[in-house]
């Protein structure tokens, strides 16, 4: 099965070639190279997948050791691959969606001076993501984990000359690092307890409850950072500063699901701790709701989608925390399809309007974007969970699991579903329906010297084929993808596929009565439709509805500002105090005081050297007297 090596190797080769030779390859060529490598990786994954399919369910796991990475006595870490159902599943959609988005980017990034840098980072990202999911131990996964973080940093800050992009990139990396703190502590715990990082060693042990809780929560902290959950979600909306394909690939479809992957991978640890399970599901639910509320009132087309991503990731964790890992993963895959579709469509819209992202300045675009519009609509319906599109099925599975866990969690989920439908409707209405508001703005920008817009005649145009082809493919996937794990007719491929990884000992099977299932499905559809209807009702005519757009939501509950004020502010002040008061004045001051005291005492002592003989004689006499006094004490005693 040497195709396994090709899965990471091809994007790696692509990245290396682009790193050193990208500037020579120039425009379309480097894009095509990256695409070919990504597609090749996808093909290799498919080959591996097929070969796995041919095996017994229990034997579907291949280990490939590449080399010994860090050997220090008992700490022996290999750079090794483990191809099992979970990793291959992830690998499939990572490379698949990744290929499509790379292809799309050729068109989207056209004309950018740093064209090849972009594709280097994309290929590096795909490589890192593959390592993350294919690694056979936690530490090597961490390698990929950080690698995707780095690529994310590079891609968010791709347009480095924008201050906002630079800040967002740094924010993303640092926030992720907070999560990594947890991940690293988890790694230390693993080593201390097991003496190994290998999934094979770690995931088959019996753990005590408290240790499992600690370990699971630390792992989850890592996942929270990477997957933008409360309290570390703030970086994701800002990450929309990156080029739109990046938002689609990294910040919607793949990288942010790494946390979901990690939790799923660690399921055998998590199941020892109900506290951890509750934490995961509650945080998931809370994030889902919070992000959905914020998304209701964003004007930036990508920020809406970003908050929606945060919200949907919350669903996934809700599903996993509720014990139905299959549902969470199902939703992850579905979400990858429709969210990538939505982002790419949004990218097409932005492309068409020459980098206009404010939805209030769009409108009526359905007439101008014949392919993008239906694609976006499909994505919208999938996300809004309108059957029979993708989102409905996976969300339904999660809600069922949540119901099983606790009706309260389910209620939060349903409310979120309502909000989801509402804000997506708002977005669709504002972008594709109503008045054409972009025209005036285009003219303004043209007058303001933005000749690019002016020369284009101000009329939006559909994107080139490299961009639309992926749209079509993803749209198809969003319509039909749900069949991968449909809850009827024995179509639950994903569940069956993953069954060896989540045996009943890890994820106890639960059953929700068929009637209840129907009821849950109907209720969620009802809420989704209600959200859709209210969205149409509210936004069909108006563009600005201040009463529905309270500032508190526009500012995301002021959480970002609050954090800066309560955490960042004092921290900065403290650092300032440390560096300029304590370090500058106290520590260094002490040193200078000591040295200064020598100089000063030297200056004072010089006064003793008066130059007068009698004074010198006095000094000698005084010394003699003192010594005589001392010896007289000794003689007396």
């Amino acid at each position, binding site marked *: 099965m040497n195709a396994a090596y090709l899965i990471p190797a091809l994007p790696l080769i692509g990245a290396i070639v682009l790193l050193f030779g990208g500037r020579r390859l120039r425009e379309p060529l480097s894009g095509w190279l990256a695409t070919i490598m990504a597609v090749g990786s996808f093909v290799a994954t498919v080959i591996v997948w097929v070969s796995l399919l041919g095996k017994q369910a229990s034997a579907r796991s291949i280990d490939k050791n590449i080399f010994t990475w860090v050997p220090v006595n008992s700490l022996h870490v290999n750079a090794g691959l483990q191809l099992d159902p979970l990793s291959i599943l992830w690998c499939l959609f990572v490379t698949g969606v990744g290929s499509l988005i790379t292809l799309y980017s050729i068109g989207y990034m056209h004309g950018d001076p740093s064209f090849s840098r972009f594709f280097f980072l994309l290929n590096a990202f795909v490589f890192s993501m593959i390592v993350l999911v294919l690694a056979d131990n936690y530490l090597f996964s961490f390698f990929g984990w950080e690698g995707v973080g780095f690529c994310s940093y590079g891609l968010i800050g791709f347009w480095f000359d924008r201050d906002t992009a630079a800040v967002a990139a740094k924010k993303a990396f640092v926030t992720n690092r907070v999560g990594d703190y947890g991940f690293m502590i988890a790694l230390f715990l693993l080593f201390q307890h097991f003496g190994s990082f290998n999934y094979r060693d770690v995931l088959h042990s019996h753990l005590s409850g408290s240790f499992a809780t600690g370990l699971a929560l630390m792992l989850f902290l890592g996942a929270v950072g990477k997957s933008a959950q409360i309290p570390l979600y703030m970086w994701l909306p800002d990450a929309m500063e990156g080029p739109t394909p990046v938002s689609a690939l990294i910040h919607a479809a793949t990288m942010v699901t790494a946390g979901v992957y990690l939790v799923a991978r660690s399921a055998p640890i998590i199941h020892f701790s109900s506290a951890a399970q509750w934490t995961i599901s509650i945080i998931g639910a809370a994030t889902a709701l919070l992000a959905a509320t914020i998304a209701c009132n964003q004007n930036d087309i990508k920020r809406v989608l970003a908050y929606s991503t945060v919200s949907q990731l919350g669903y996934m964790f809700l599903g996993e925390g509720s014990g139905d890992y299959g549902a969470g993963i199902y939703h992850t895959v579905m979400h990858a399809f429709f969210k990538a579709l939505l982002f790419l469509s949004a990218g097409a819209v932005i492309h068409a309007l020459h980098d206009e992202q404010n939805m209030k300045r769009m409108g009526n675009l359905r007439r101008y974007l014949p392919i993008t519009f239906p694609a976006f609509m499909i994505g919208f319906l999938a996300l809004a969970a309108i059957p029979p599109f993708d989102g409905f099925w996976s969300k339904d599975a999660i809600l069922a699991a949540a119901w099983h866990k606790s009706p309260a969690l389910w209620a939060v989920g349903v409310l979120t579903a309502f909000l989801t439908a509402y804000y997506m409707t708002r977005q669709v209405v504002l972008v594709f329906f109503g008045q054409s508001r972009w025209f005036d703005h285009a003219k303004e920008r043209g007058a303001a010297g933005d000749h690019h817009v002016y020369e284009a005649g101000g009329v939006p145009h559909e994107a080139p084929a490299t961009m639309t082809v992926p749209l079509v493919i993803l749209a198809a996937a969003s319509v039909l993808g749900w069949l991968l794990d449909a809850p009827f007719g024995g179509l639950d491929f994903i569940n069956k596929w993953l069954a060896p990884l989540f045996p009943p000992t890890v994820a106890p099977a639960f059953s929700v009565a068929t009637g209840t299932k129907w009821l849950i499905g109907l209720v969620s559809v009802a809420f989704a439709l209600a959200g859709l209807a209210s969205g149409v009702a509210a936004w069909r005519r108006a563009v600005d509805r201040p009463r529905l757009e309270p500032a508190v939501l526009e500012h995301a509950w002021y959480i970002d500002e609050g954090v800066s004020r309560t955490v960042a502010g004092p921290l900065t002040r403290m650092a300032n105090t440390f560096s300029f008061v304590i370090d500058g004045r106290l520590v260094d001051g002490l040193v200078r005081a000591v040295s200064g005291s020598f100089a000063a005492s030297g200056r004072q002592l010089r006064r003793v050297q008066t*130059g*007068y003989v009698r004074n010198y*004689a006095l000094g000698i006499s005084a010394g003699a007297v003192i010594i005589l006094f001392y010896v007289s004490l000794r003689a007396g005693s």
Partner: protein
Amino acid sequence: MSVPSAWYLVLAAVLFGLGATGLLIRRNVLVMFMCIELMLNAVNLTFVTFSRDLNDIGGQVNVFFVLVVAAAEVVVGLAIIVAMFRRRAAATADDIHILKG
């Protein structure tokens, strides 16, 4: 009746102290120099006293050495003083303090 040797020693100590004090408080270089001579002679007295006490001739012989040395010191000292004050009117020790600090 003989005077106890301790009296001589005390006298010598007092003389020595006087000489030292003189050196400390007088300004005239020659006087200071004489004070040093006074100290040396106080030591001589001490030597002689101890010599008598110990019934040892060595102490008395030492006195001769001290006298010789004192003479040599006088020669050199006066030469230096003369050379120094040949170009100055005043002859106080406080006038010489170019070197200080």
